[in-house]
């Protein structure tokens, strides 16, 4: 079973993107950082008690599924869209959604384009092997306009092609566009078009068939979300977990009451470790892609359900 493998290895192999600032990218010292990376670290913390016990395996849109299917990685947290065929035909299990997204376009301001429908005849850069590639084909066909795709392997290359003017527009998940734009020299010269042409629920996934492992990843993610809902932060998690408090849900979450951890084969402090690793969902969001960062994404759909968003962690009980 995967859990045993991970424990025996002492490291979690986690698939991430080859480099998308804010989601997963190595910094100048080679440390991986980002929104997806934080999920990996949380799982590693929950399972092994050490948020740094992760081997990050960079994958492209093309290699990610084979890496997961062949067992090279234990889980994939690479802004991957939950789709029917990936879940069923490719035999993966999506364990949740960590970012509700949709596909958008970015174009240079100088082009004077204000709507995706104006892109008739344009050259569009697109990452191969992604849902966005398929959506793009559908969208242009449905609107009966023509385009020319320039398939590229990684976001980095897409960005280069786009900046060099080899394509008029670049399309991918809106979050990815924002992250990419943030790295531009003059981000204000580029606009993200208003159209969102698809639903892109992004979430971590594991191989089908090992439900125990799937549960661990699923509930680690839920723990992060729930922690935000209940106000458990990296700052107060130590204090809250020192002794049982007055919120029984928090107590159960942090292992001071009942022993949920044992039910999934982990320590009682699993959720505490996960939260301590990088903070709760809100903290992770703010730190990596939130409005205070150059990427500047608003919470929008990704706010807690209590705040009008879609994040809704099932009860810990």
């Amino acid at each position: 079973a995967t859990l045993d493998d991970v424990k025996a290895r002492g490291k979690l192999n986690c698939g991430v993107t080859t480099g998308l600032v804010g989601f997963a990218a190595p910094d100048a010292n080679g440390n991986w950082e980002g929104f997806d990376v934080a999920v990996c670290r949380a799982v590693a913390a929950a399972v092994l008690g050490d948020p740094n016990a992760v081997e990050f395996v960079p994958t492209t849109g093309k290699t990610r599924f084979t890496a997961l299917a062949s067992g090279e990685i234990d889980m994939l947290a690479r802004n991957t869209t939950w789709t029917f065929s990936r879940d069923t035909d490719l035999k993966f299990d999506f364990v949740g959604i960590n970012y509700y997204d949709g596909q958008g376009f970015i174009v240079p301001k100088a082009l004077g384009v204000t709507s995706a429908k104006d892109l008739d005849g344009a050259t569009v850069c697109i990452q191969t092997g992604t849902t966005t590639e398929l959506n793009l084909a559908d969208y242009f066909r449905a609107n009966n306009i023509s385009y020319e795709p320039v398939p590229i392997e990684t976001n980095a290359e897409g960005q280069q092609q786009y900046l060099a003017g080899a394509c008029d527009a670049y399309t991918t998940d809106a979050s990815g566009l924002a992250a990419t734009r943030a790295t531009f020299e003059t981000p204000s010269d580029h606009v993200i078009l208003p159209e969102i042409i698809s639903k892109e629920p992004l979430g971590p996934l594991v191989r089908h068939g090992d439900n125990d492992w799937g549960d661990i990843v699923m509930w680690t993610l839920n723990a992060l979300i729930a922690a935000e809902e209940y106000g458990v932060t990296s700052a107060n998690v130590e204090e809250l977990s020192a002794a049982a408090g007055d919120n029984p849900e928090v107590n159960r979450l942090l292992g001071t009451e009942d022993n949920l951890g044992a039910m999934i084969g982990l320590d009682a402090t699993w959720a505490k470790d996960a939260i301590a690793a990088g903070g709760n969902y809100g903290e992770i969001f703010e730190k990596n892609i939130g409005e205070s960062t150059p990427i500047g994404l608003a919470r929008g759909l990704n706010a807690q359900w209590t705040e009008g968003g879609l994040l809704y962690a099932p009860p810990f009980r």
Partner: protein
Amino acid sequence: MSDTHAESVAFVRETAIPPALPPATVSGPVKWMRDNLFPTWANGLLTVAALYIIYLILSSSLPWLLGGIWNAESLAQCREILQGNSAACFAVLSERWNQLLFGFKYPPELYWRPTLAFVLLFIAAAPVLFFDLPRKLLIFTGIYPFLAYWLIWGGTILTPLIALLGVVVGYLVFNRFVKGSFAAGMFGGVAAALVVWILGGMVFSGADLFSLRSVSSRDLGGFMLNMMLGITCVSLSVPIGIALALGRQSDLPIVKYICVVFIEFIRGVPLITLLFVASVMLSYFFPPERTVDLFLRVVIMITMFSSAYIAEVIRGGLAALPKGQYEAADSLGLDYPQAMRLIILPQALKISIPGIVNIAVGLFKDTTLVSVITLFDIVGMIRGPILASTDWNGVYWELFMFASVLFFIVCYSISQYSQWLERRLATDHR
């Protein structure tokens, strides 16, 4: 005898004519210029055209190269310094130097280890490449792989030590029995080595002697990864290549066809599909509970790839040997393994070295393909982390030029070596 011409007959020279220096028209720079640059009218035009091309290349690249900026923190800063002038921003090299060479995850404080391994490589390779050096040095060559493994991956020294011990014991046993019969030597050697490995594994499991901090192979990267892949795969594929070549030459049809099919199959598909197999399919062929390290899988595939090519080179070497050598060995009563080991292979391999070196160069260049399956070799580093970073987005020339220069230095020197060797063998053999 009739009318022979008296004046031409009975000529005898009494003294030797001393050799004289050739007249000036035969040598000298003017003559050289005339012969080599302007022998004919059309040729002169060609010279002028060539000069113009050289001028074009130099005039466009030299200012760019010489005006390069070496100190800056990002491309933006570079541009600031340049103030609109066009010149190289080599600062990316100084800033990412270590990443380019070692990848972005090899612990910086351990850089000395691969560096040391690299330096030792020269000592280890020397006796293989230059026959004149004392044969004793080969001992170090034998030790080197184990040492390099220890230095690069770290961990306890016991692992490579036991592996080395096994090989040594195996070799001794082989040597002891090979005179009796090759099969006995071979099996004895392998068995002895296995025994040592198993025993060693049992006795020392968990022991922790001279432990270096261990580094996982995922963390290898940069040019170091190219070098490692190149060297490992070539050295592994030589013995396999020999076996395949002998198999293909053999008159046992089944053995022969197995080898032919293998060789032709491997040579028929691009390396990149084999690498896809390594990254996508190979783990399906291993027992479910064991996942093999991607590095190892890549090594397996590249080794298979190069061994097929090396087999063809060695087959050429075998074919180049006169049939008489086989017959002489036979007529002296040597059996097949003896004839091969003592007579045929030493000669065939020597002939094949230039070819093998060429394959090695090709292979070394092909190690860059691993970037396609997301290993971070030097090209992978450039295409991925470095170009994707905010600081250096847009610096292509400098980076690719750097990589090109590295490859050029290595490949060019190897191919010069191989040409030198070819010349030497040509005179050596007569």
